């Protein structure tokens, strides 16, 4: 390769060589001119703000810049660095338990029980360590920010598995020889493309506390009492099933569950479309071969469709999970004062710190912490589920 290039340029006359170099310079200039407008915008509003956010987070900054305070904004948010270390240590223990558990199945069968027990013990220890680390953090940290994390987790756990499972079922059914497949796909997709502020405004009236609201008419149809929905700060489990659980296990508020319904309603259609595309790429011969071997519908679904769809499922779960941690617009629109902050997920809390409390530096520090949480969740999800993905 190198020899051909040198022999060509070596053989050319000096004048021609100069021309080639001039053309090369011209190419370079053209390219830089072409990317210049995009990079001006992206540097100014995409790259510079990242560095400036880090800078801001080290200052006492309320509307105007104040004094340099180092990591104080971060310390104030998380409460206790020792608590954070213990908290993360708990997760490492759970990771260890998971690793041991996986290896248990590769080892000899008579040791399986011992190793399994060991893994379970470490798992429990991990849970205990996490909760004690969390206790330390919450005792000294920012109650609003830390309190918003379990709420965000409720929202994520409430929406992601449900929207993916429903979408998988709908996509699989649509993929059978169905009349009007495109029509159904179009219907399911509508909620996703409609402006989220508009649909959230509609859901505000549907999940209203009025006895005549659509959600309450639905309950009345099944002979149930009307509920306050978005206006109800009490835990869903308490309202619907009379359960009285404490702390994290109390679960999301009725108001947050109403927002979960909205989340599922919005994203099912999107997931269905992606699943349909995934189903289309599974070779049809596999099903025929399975049929010849006597497999029934369920076997074919379980052993062909699911494994071959796993990259799509993984991708959707990853994107959806990250999306719930960034979710803002619809939650902000559906939040009412009577919900008493029980729907304030992390991004909403950060916005309040910035917009309502005017604590710019503090809010930036919290946003950066949220970024690291999202990063960590992405890595964990990759590690745990990425290994199970079958790429064919």
């Amino acid at each position: 390769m190198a020899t051909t290039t040198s022999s060509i340029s070596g053989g050319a006359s000096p004048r021609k060589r100069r021309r080639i170099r001039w053309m090369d310079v011209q190419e370079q200039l053209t390219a830089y001119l072409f990317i210049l407008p995009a990079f001006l915008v992206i540097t100014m509003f995409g790259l510079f703000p990242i560095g400036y956010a880090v800078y801001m987070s080290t200052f006492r900054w309320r509307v105007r810049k104040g004094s340099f305070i180092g990591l104080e904004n971060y310390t104030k948010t998380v409460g206790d660095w020792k608590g954070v270390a213990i908290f993360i240590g708990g997760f490492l223990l759970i990771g260890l338990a998971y690793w041991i558990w996986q290896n248990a199945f590769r080892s000899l069968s008579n040791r399986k029980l011992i190793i399994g027990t060991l893994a379970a013990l470490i798992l429990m220890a991990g849970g205990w360590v996490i909760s004690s680390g969390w206790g330390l953090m919450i005792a000294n940290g920012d109650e609003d920010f830390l309190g918003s994390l379990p709420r965000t987790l409720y929202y994520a756990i409430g929406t992601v598995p449900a929207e993916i499972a429903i979408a998988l079922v709908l996509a699989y059914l649509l993929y059978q020889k169905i009349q009007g497949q495109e029509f159904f796909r179009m219907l399911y997709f509508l909620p996703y493309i409609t402006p989220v502020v508009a649909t959230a405004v509609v859901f505000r009236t549907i999940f209203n506390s009025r006895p005549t609201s659509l959600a309450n008419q639905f309950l009345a149809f099944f002979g149930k009492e009307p509920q306050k929905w978005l206006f109800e700060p009490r835990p869903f489990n308490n309202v619907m099933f009379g359960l009285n659980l404490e702390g994290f296990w109390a679960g999301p508020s009725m108001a947050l569950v109403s927002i979960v319904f909205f989340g599922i309603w919005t994203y099912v259609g999107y997931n269905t479309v992606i699943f349909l595309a995934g189903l289309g790429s599974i070779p049809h011969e596999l099903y025929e071969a399975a049929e010849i071997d006597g497999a029934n519908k369920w076997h074919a679904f379980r052993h062909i469709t699911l494994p071959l769809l796993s990259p799509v499922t993984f991708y959707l779960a990853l994107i959806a999970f990250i999306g719930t941690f960034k979710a803002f617009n619809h939650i902000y629109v559906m939040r009412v004062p009577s919900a008493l902050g029980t729907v304030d997920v992390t991004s909403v809390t950060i916005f309040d710190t910035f917009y309502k409390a005017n604590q710019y530096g503090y809010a930036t520090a919290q946003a950066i912490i949220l970024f690291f949480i999202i990063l960590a969740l992405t890595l964990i999800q990759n590690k745990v589920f990425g290994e199970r993905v079958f790429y064919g």
Partner: protein
Amino acid sequence: MANPSQTLQASSAISTEASGPRFNLSLGKALIYLILIVGGILAILPFFWMVSTSLMTLGETINKQWLPKVPQFSNYVEAWTEAKFGKYFLNSVIITTVTLAGLLTTSILAGYAFGRIKFFGSSVLFAILLSTMMIPESVTMIPNFLMIRGDIIPLPGLPGWGGSWLNHLPALTVPFMANAFSIFLLRQFFIQIPDELWDAARIDGAGHLRFLLQVVLPISKAPVMTVLLFSFIGSWNAFLWPLLVTTKPTWRPLMVGLWTFVTEAGPETQLLMAGAVITIIPILILYFATQKQFTEGIATTGLKG
């Protein structure tokens, strides 16, 4: 990391035609249709509710009824004029048009450079570009707000703006005039264009700009359209940022107008719903006009808003 391009490739081979395993039993078929229809009803029920409520009288919105006795089309007139949705609508149209014009220009040029010209540092710059996709909006939002307010550097503008873009058109458009995703999408397409076309154009004496305008763009309608659709939706649906930078109604877009109506106007649900309908109509028209391209564009890129 799940290799995204792998997913893209997998899903790019779409065949939307149903060709899966057959259900022979008609009972099974009926059950399938039942589930699909229930799903469809749940998907559009809120839309039905919205349109129906938007045609009710104030009294009817509180009652337990599904349809207005007499459709009150005057609600729309009232929402358009008195609730100022007409003004917000026009604002949104201008903001979206200006943003799209800017975005298309910057991303076609940059996508072309990254896809078709070998230049020093291109891979590093491209990696930097892609890394901006990872950063959540909440991190960059506050510095950007200070920037728009002119706190960091005075911004160019008309006399009287005082170096600030707050409540002015550029605040709503300029920050969105380039993004990594659009550049990436166009580059992926431009890179596949055969080199022979470029060689032929160069022999004819064309430079990069002429080649881009006269050869590349005419054959790139599909990816350009995809970028256009996604950006239209992104710009039209934007809420958080416009909420921050429009404290006065001068340039307030529809989404923020709808939200301020919620917070300021109280219980006039029928006007609110009329406003919501006005908000979604352009998106629906766009969706129905470009339906196939739309869903397939989403399926192939896997974009999630």
